[in-house]
């Protein structure tokens, strides 16, 4: 159970997260002021009438002074009011809510699939160093780590959607549309996980208690029962961080497969110069990332007494 020192440390971690959230939201506020020239020009074009320009500037609150804009921005955030899209006039909060479930489903299937691939492979290759499994795993890990998703994705589309016709080319109309994007994301991810698990397991398998267990005649299965929990944490920590990244949308993969998640929304907004939507997406994605990472840190420290609370 956490004692006084750890409660203090939890407080410290939460304070860090709060500072990070403030920094992130402030940075997102500044984003719109990074647009070269006038953001109104960028959105409406140079030939817009002055009435339209004034109307848009007023709708976005850009006609107010900077401190007023900042106050309005934070008041809006606290009320979950992210403004409206410049083009569709839809409330942005509703747009995010509509897209977020797609991203969540994709992220969880990708991480789940990656764990399904990497745990057995990692165990087999750690048990037999320099065996065929080990070499195959390493080759897979190196190639999976070097081939970007925008290369794997189209290759998978050509083979499984065009030639074999097993799955749709893109879109999320049926559950089968989830297969290719999830596989694409999980390949890169399992390349990292399998290397982590292999090196962690190799470290644990060299420990004295494993040697003793081997001498007492433990089967490989029994060895793993003792070794896996000790090797699992670094692997789960990477998987958790990745879940945090993917929860915000795998921008490129979602674009390749036309998966209507938050990443695709971000790119659509960038291409349509719908800057309020871009801001909201970046804000949401970063906040999700900070929150998930903070939560994971606390869970790990609670699971593993060796991790220092600070």
């Amino acid at each position, binding site marked *: 159970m956490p004692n006084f020192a750890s409660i203090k440390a939890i407080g410290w971690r939460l304070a*860090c997260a709060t*500072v*990070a*959230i403030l*920094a*992130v939201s402030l*940075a997102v506020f500044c*984003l*719109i002021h*990074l*647009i*070269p020239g006038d953001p109104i020009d*960028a959105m409406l074009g140079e030939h817009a009438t002055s009435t339209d320009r004034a109307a848009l500037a007023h709708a976005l609150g850009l006609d107010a002074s900077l401190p007023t804009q900042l106050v309005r921005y934070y008041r809006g955030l606290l009320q979950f009011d992210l403004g409206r899209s410049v083009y569709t006039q839809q409330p942005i909060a509703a747009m995010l809510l509509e897209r977020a479930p797609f991203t969540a489903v994709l992220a969880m299937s990708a991480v789940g699939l990656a764990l399904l691939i990497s745990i057995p492979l990692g165990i087999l290759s750690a048990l037999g160093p320099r065996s065929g499994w080990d070499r195959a795993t390493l080759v897979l890990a*190196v*190639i999976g*780590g*070097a*081939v*970007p*998703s*925008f*290369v794997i994705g*189209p*290759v998978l*589309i*050509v083979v499984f959607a*065009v030639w074999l016709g097993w799955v749709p*080319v893109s879109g999320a109309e049926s559950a089968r549309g989830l297969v290719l994007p999830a596989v694409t994301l999980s390949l*890169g991810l399992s390349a*990292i996980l399998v*290397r*982590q698990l292999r090196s962690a397991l190799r470290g644990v398998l060299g420990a004295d208690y494993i040697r003793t267990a081997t001498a007492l005649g433990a089967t490989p299965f029994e060895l793993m029962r003792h070794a896996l929990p000790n090797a699992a944490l670094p692997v789960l920590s*990477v998987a958790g*961080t*990745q879940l*945090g*990244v993917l929860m*915000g*949308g795998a*921008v*490129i993969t979602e*674009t*390749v497969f036309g998966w209507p998640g938050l990443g695709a929304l*971000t*790119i659509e907004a*960038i*291409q349509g110069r719908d*800057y309020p939507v*871009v801001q909201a*997406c*970046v804000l949401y*994605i*970063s906040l999700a*990332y*900070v929150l998930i990472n903070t939560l994971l840190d606390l869970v790990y420290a609670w699971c593993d007494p060796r991790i220092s609370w600070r």
Partner: protein
Amino acid sequence: MRNRDWVCLTVILAWLSGAAVAPLILPTANTVDLTRMFARPQWALWLGADDLGRAIALRVISGAGVSCPVALVVVAISFSVGSVFGITCAWCGGRLDFIGMRVMDACLAFPGILLAIALAGIMGPGLGNVVIALCSIGWVGFARLARAQTLSVKRREHVLVAEAMGVRPGHILMRHVWPLVLAPLLVEASFAFASAIAAEAGMSFLGLGVQPPTPSWGSMLREAAQFLLIAPHLMLGPALAIVSLVLSVQILGERLRAYLQFEHRETVRP
């Protein structure tokens, strides 16, 4: 060096020389010839021709002239800014170190590639903005590594002895600390180069990088993706280029790490 390492070195040098001759062949690579639209790979056209009948092999070589310089500049800027920042933090310590750490934490609070995409998206397409965006996420890795390494070197006996003997701090830093900090930074730089190649290609794939008709590997893949169903061979050239270069750099980086005996913390790619 094993055979495999020589292969990797050759691949890297080949792409770098491709980047060097790229400006010379750019006009030929941009020549439109509609009679050979979507031509399949053949002897005269190794990788075939694209939707405007331009030779893909030539465009892939010109693409190296975009990807390689961008990645080199990004790594050079990130390396310099990051190592100066990290070493300063660790060397001065105290309040400066505390503030520096918080700045790094704040940068890490964003999922890297998203920040780059958002920055480049907001600032508008173009290579300069891609470089700025990639540097703004790239320097943190170098800074953290330089800080950690300087902190550990600072406590070593030869530094303590030098301080006790009254050697000037600047001299200690350059002569006794920097050489020991440099080695892991070089390993990090090789992996950062591989990620920068992939990240630049990713951003060009999203349409944020160099603008047409100048080819880059990412934008070629973007064009290829539009014709995926009728001419999948358009993908072959740029895909092989990215994978061969990234893979070679990663393998050599791994060798360098093993040679210098440093643990590399696996970074998560986009």
